[in-house]
């Protein structure tokens, strides 16, 4: 292959490294109104009165909107970027009189500059009726405090939601007789695992600007992964027709799922719609840490039964997920905690997976890379590691006995067949690369420090089965260069580049011959958006098919110009030829613009009836200071089966970046609330994402299977990569200090104070 499977520079790389103005705030009109949100200091309260007159007297103030401006009995909406009808409940109003978490929106404030708006916010007087908050998600179900008591709350899909029980979703699935399996098992591992509402912490916070266009339509430019869903969300929130809204995205400063929720768009949209003036909102880091769309906190009760030979016979998982004040992505994330962990174990005869997703009075959760699989894999893989220890069996050996293989049916993965899988090779590669046999389980370094290893496996999906839609439009321009239009959003991942690579491979041209037009609801063909590990697999396949179709169009016009039958011609990327006669693409392109009616343009839409899982194995070598409990990952080795890596460099960096996020979740990224519902980690001062001093090295290998349904054999990569560090690091710490931790992050205090260690 000439372009696919090549490490080509990202098409926008040099613009980015030289700091060109390509992000939202770089291109926003300079006369934008500054929009800020007055937020609730209480976790549960009713706004009794709100006085804005004094604030509005400030010179430069434009508007202040409160619940009084928003019909409270109107249809509610969700900010979750999902295919309609969204599984996430319609539980929001643009401004709700009932505020449901510390940080919920009380007023939208717009003025000429930041200083004016900041001052105005201090002059707004709000009287609250403070209600008792529901902060403990263990007691949320059927609690007397209802987070959403209102009658216009609505669930569009049968996900087991019931606002009168604080239930955002409930589901049960099973196969075989799990209790019988446990009764017959030699060993049963039975523990509860807990992961926190970690923050995506993309470097660019949430931000959007809006203007009115020449047709009186609302033009929204946002740092978003989901332009099309965003259009619907704004229409639903503002109660205006979708035809009046255009959403596009500039370069995005990172997303990781955070921007799969329209966290900020509706507010400047409302200001611009009402005032007809340009407006922008930029979340502060504090807002991004306290009123955003983090991972769902989950508590997972795993029961795992096995024979004394180490064959996993059954897995029972109950997941309790905390969606916070609103239900964004609540019903869907929880499913992955079981459906993307249990299927790894191919010998199991039974499984049961039950889950509840509950409302509480804390910030709403959302979508974060891994999307529930991360949480579930921490629990299940940790339980398997504990099983290995209990049986005095090497965790690699135990995995080899149990893993799923290509061609196996996966009952816990909706009964799908495992169409492509190199998980066995991933195990072998990681085992050898980290020199497991010499390092497992622990080595005393003789200086108060020990070095130990731990491992874990992971899977994910490639798009949402029979839901996600990806499209591509390709056209030939003068001189024979191509424009590729997509609705998927490059958020730094490089999808503009890898999709162009797929097109270039089919069209037999160079990367320079293809320009890419990013996501814009007015001009892009429909795409669900960049999430659920769908872009390479779903949209990538659309690009491949589209390029093939365009090739046919080129041949058709070429044949007409050569005066021969289309079945006799060939296109080699430069010329259409038949026998000795040929005509160049340039001449065909020119002809298409003068006196011919064959369109040199094609649009193809793709969806997939399967979601082939990428697989991964990871192993961590940690150094633990037994005195202080400080734990550092000095070496992390991983092998990924993402099918064919379209761009090995970009796939590698996806893996390395995801792994470090997982390490952060395992060791340092904590979320804690006080008794009144204030989150403590509200800046990068308290919320510690790893710096480059916190990691030794990350080494990634590819063990590629070939997925027939994917473009050139590719599956997804973006999400699976975050999952392995959690169980791997936790087990490495167990091997270092002899104590198991069931809650993340495992902080130095926890390690230093552990009984075994003391």
């Amino acid at each position, binding site marked *: 292959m000439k372009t696919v499977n090549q490490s080509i520079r990202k098409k926008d790389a040099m613009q980015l490294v030289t700091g*060109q*103005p390509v992000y939202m705030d770089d291109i926003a009109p300079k006369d934008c109104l500054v929009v800020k949100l007055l937020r609730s200091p209480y976790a549960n309260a009713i706004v009794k009165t709100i006085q804005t007159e004094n604030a509005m007297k400030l010179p430069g103030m434009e508007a202040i909107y409160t619940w009084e401006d928003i019909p409270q009995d109107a249809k509610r909406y969700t900010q979750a970027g999902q295919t309609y009808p969204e599984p996430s409940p319609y539980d929001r109003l643009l401004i709700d009189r009932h505020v449901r978490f510390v940080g919920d929106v009380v007023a939208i404030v717009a003025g000429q500059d930041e200083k004016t708006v900041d001052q105005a916010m201090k002059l707004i007087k709000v009287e609250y009726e403070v209600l008792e908050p529901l902060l403990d998600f263990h007691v949320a179900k059927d609690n007397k405090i209802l987070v959403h008591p209102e009658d216009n709350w609505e669930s569009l899909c049968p996900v087991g939601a019931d606002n009168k029980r604080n239930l955002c979703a409930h589901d049960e699935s099973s196969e075989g007789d799990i209790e019988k399996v446990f009764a017959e098992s030699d060993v049963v591992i039975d523990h509860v695992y807990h992961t926190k509402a970690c923050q995506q912490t993309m470097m660019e916070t949430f931000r959007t600007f809006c203007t009115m266009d020449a047709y009186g339509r609302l033009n929204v430019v946002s740092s978003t992964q989901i332009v099309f869903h965003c259009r619907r969300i704004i229409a639903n929130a503002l109660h205006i027709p979708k035809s009046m809204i255009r959403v596009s995205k500039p370069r995005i400063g*990172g997303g990781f799922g955070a921007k799969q929720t329209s966290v900020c768009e509706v507010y400047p949209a409302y200001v611009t719609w009402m005032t007809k003036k340009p407006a922008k909102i930029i979340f502060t880091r504090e807002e991004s840490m306290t009123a955003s769309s983090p991972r769902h906190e989950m508590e997972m009760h795993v029961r795992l039964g096995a024979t004394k030979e180490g064959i996993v016979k059954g897995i029972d998982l109950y997941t309790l997920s905390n969606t916070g004040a609103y239900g964004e992505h609540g019903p869907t994330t929880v499913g992955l905690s079981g459906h993307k962990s249990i299927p790894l174990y191919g010998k199991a005869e039974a499984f049961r997976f039950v889950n509840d997703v509950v409302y509480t009075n804390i910030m709403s959760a959302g979508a974060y890379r891994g999307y529930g699989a991360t949480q579930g894999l921490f629990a299940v893989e940790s339980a398997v590691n504990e099983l290995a220890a209990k049986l005095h069996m090497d965790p690699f050996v135990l995995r080899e006995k149990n893993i799923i293989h290509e061609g196996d049916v996966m009952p816990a993965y909706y009964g799908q067949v495992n169409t492509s899988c190199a998980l066995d090779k991933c195990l072998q590669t990681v085992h050898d690369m980290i020199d497991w046999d010499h390092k497992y389980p622990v080595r005393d370094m003789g200086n108060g420090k020990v070095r130990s290893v731990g491992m874990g496996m992971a899977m994910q999906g490639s798009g949402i089965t029979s839901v996600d839609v990806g499209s591509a439009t390709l056209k030939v321009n003068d001189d024979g260069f191509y424009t590729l239009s997509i609705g998927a959003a490059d958020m730094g991942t490089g999808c503009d580049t890898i999709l162009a690579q797929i097109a270039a491979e089919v069209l037999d041209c160079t990367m320079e011959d293809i320009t890419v037009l990013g996501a814009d609801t007015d001009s892009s063909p429909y795409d669900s958006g960049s999430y659920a590990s769908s872009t390479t697999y779903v949209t990538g396949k659309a690009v491949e098919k589209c390029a093939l179709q365009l090739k046919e169009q080129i041949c058709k016009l070429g044949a007409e110009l050569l005066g021969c039958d289309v079945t006799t011609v060939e296109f080699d990327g430069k010329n259409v030829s038949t026998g000795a006669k040929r005509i160049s693409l340039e001449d065909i392109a020119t002809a298409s613009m003068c006196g011919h009616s064959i369109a040199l343009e094609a649009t193809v839409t793709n969806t997939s009836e399967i979601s082939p899982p990428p697989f991964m194995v990871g192993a961590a070598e940690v150094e633990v200071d037994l005195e202080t409990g400080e734990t550092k990952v000095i070496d992390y080795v991983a092998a990924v089966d993402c099918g064919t890596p379209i761009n090995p460099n970009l796939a590698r960096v996806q893996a390395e970046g995801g792994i470090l996020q997982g390490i952060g979740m395992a060791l340092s990224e904590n979320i804690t609330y006080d008794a009144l519902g204030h989150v403590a980690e509200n800046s990068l001062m308290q919320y510690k994402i790893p710096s480059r*001093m916190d990691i030794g090295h990350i080494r990634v290998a590819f063990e590629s299977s070939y997925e027939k349904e994917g473009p050139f054999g590719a599956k997804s990569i973006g999400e699976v990569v975050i999952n392995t560090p959690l169980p791997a690091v936790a087990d490495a710490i167990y091997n270092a200090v002899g104590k198991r931790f069931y809650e993340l992050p495992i902080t130095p205090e926890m390690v230093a104070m552990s009984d075994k260690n003391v």
Partner: protein
Amino acid sequence: MQKVNIIIEVNGKKISEAIEPDMTLFDFVRAHGCYSVKCGCETSNCGLCTVFLEDKPVLSCSVLAVRADEKRVTTLEGLQEEAAEFGAFIADQGAEQCGFCNPGLIMNALALFREIEFPTEEEIKEYLSGNLCRCSGYEGQLRGIQDFLSWKKEKGVRA
């Protein structure tokens, strides 16, 4: 608030202006078209807003513009050739990713290369530890930096 008259040299161009005394250097340089300078945290943790003040890297979100009075300020806009030369090595790893942290990283890396011509891996990590990146896991950036240093060394030998 009483405005203050300042003269700041930004990328070789002298700017004379009356500014609010609480204006940060970050706001000042962006107001003068230096859009490469980004803000990621407001608490001086992320390194995205790094600029040179008299050739020394500073976090512009935490420096008042008035402190740059009568001084030279350099942003990536003023170092385009160096940025492209070094940045190409980051790009060759695909490690620029979303790009939002790149200007701050590249500014600080250029500062590092001026202080230590051929830094060791430890020196690189330590000097750049205040430059956070959420996309790359740092490994690709490190490879890019080391490739750049090897290239520079080889070029030096050949010259």
